[in-house]
């Protein structure tokens, strides 16, 4: 005779075993379906690339017909072209972009940037970013202030990839917005990516807009190291806003220009704030002008941060700078540290 509790336990055990079996079978089935779909997708992708290449040499110009005859790979085709475009330049790239244009992919992405679904907006912005076409800037710029953070970041990257001067004002405008919509470094990287085309707009931005945008403009001009910006950076180094002044000083240190040395040397004076003197000392080291040696040597007697920066800069000024460091090494610990660093560098270079 089996008691009621035993029956309940048996039923429960059997039910749990049945549920586990069903879940296991379902998991195996889902995995198999996923693997099959992935294999089909890979196969379609593998068929798509030769078709794309064939279309590149389609002398009749009827690219659409070549691709339409192969509708089965159509969905993979766009993805394959979008993956290929950023790797190429020149006529082949233009042809690939033209294929996307004819297929309506670009227009669909432009519409997609205004979708109510964040994921669609994100994918559309990423697609337009991969193409890097300045003509898409009017659709990308509003997405810099999208309510979704991923879309905003993608829009920043996409605008940088256009390498168009027209992207600069919108990117700087985001820097000056009240709320921090995108991290500053993402915006400055995008501005650097715009490249030489950004120089006139960035130079203009040094005297307009808020301090964050002006600082970023100065930093980016330094990274681009375009000598056309030297005069504007010299003026910005005198800015009342210390962040703007420091960014301009640092940028001048990156310029390969003799004109940058004198204004930097002027900023080493005792009447200047310590952080400005430190920034100027660092920039002079980066600039590498030998006539800065005596001025930097005087800074070895100043407080630690300034003396350390001056010593490291002297380290970069060749034999004359090293001679100063050696003559101060016994009494100035910062000079000893810089000499040790120079020695380590020589040993490492020798080992290579």
């Amino acid at each position, binding site marked *: 005779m089996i008691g009621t509790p035993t029956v309940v336990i048996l039923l429960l055990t059997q039910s749990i075993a049945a549920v586990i079996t069903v879940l296991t079978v379902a998991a195996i089935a889902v995995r198999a379906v996923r693997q099959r779909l992935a294999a089909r997708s890979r196969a379609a992708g593998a068929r798509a690339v*030769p078709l794309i*290449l064939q279309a590149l040499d389609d002398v009749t110009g009827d690219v659409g017909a070549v691709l339409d005859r192969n509708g089965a790979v159509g969905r993979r085709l766009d993805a394959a072209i979008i*993956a290929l475009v*950023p*790797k*190429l*330049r*020149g006529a*082949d790239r233009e042809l690939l972009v033209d294929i996307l244009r004819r297929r309506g992919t670009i227009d669909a992405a432009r519409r997609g940037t205004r979708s109510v679904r964040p994921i669609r907006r994100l994918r559309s912005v990423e697609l337009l970013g991969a193409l890097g076409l300045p003509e898409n800037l009017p659709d990308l710029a509003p997405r810099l202030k999208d309510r979704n953070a991923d879309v905003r970041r993608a829009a920043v990257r996409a605008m940088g990839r256009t390498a168009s001067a027209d992207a600069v004002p919108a990117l700087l405008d985001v820097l000056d917005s009240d709320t921090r919509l995108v991290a500053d470094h993402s915006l400055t990287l995008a501005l650097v990516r715009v490249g030489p085309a950004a120089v006139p707009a960035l130079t203009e931005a040094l005297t307009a807009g808020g301090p964050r945008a002006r600082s970023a403009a100065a930093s980016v001009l330094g990274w681009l190291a375009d000598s056309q910006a030297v005069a504007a950076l010299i003026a910005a180094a005198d800015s009342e806003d210390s962040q703007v002044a420091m960014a301009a000083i640092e940028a001048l240190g990156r310029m390969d220009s003799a004109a940058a040395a004198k204004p930097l040397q002027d900023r080493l004076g005792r009447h200047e704030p310590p952080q400005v003197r430190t920034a100027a000392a660092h920039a002079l080291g980066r600039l590498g002008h030998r006539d800065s040696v005596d001025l930097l040597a005087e800074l070895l007697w100043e407080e630690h941060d300034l003396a350390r920066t001056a010593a490291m800069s002297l380290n970069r000024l060749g034999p004359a700078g090293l001679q100063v460091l050696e003559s101060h090494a016994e009494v100035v610990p910062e000079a000893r540290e810089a000499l040790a660093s120079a020695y380590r560098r020589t040993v490492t270079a020798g080992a290579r």
Partner: protein
Amino acid sequence: MPTILVVDDDPDICSVLEFRLTSSGYDVLVENDGEAALAALEQESVDLLLMDWMMPRMGGLEACLTLRADERFAALPVFMLTAKAQEADVQRGLAAGANDYIVKPFSPREVVARVASALARTGQLTP
């Protein structure tokens, strides 16, 4: 017909270069890393090597240095095809023994023109 060995770990780039070079009349071999490229050079007669810098197992720079240390391959034209675009990178690539340095993103048609020019200089038959 000159044989070009294309070495890159990106299958898209290999496909495009293979297509462009083949359409221009070259025989094309493809490998995906420096080690495989060195092995292929032992087996096949190659007239020009077109190689990426950053690859798994063995990068293009290391492979180039290895080739230049082997007198059998000392004169083999080697083109670096890489995303490393800094001036110092170009200097390093050329110092390692590369004959030409092409920065990605690249124009496949320009690569073909450079290949033809390099082979013409070395007296190779162009297709």
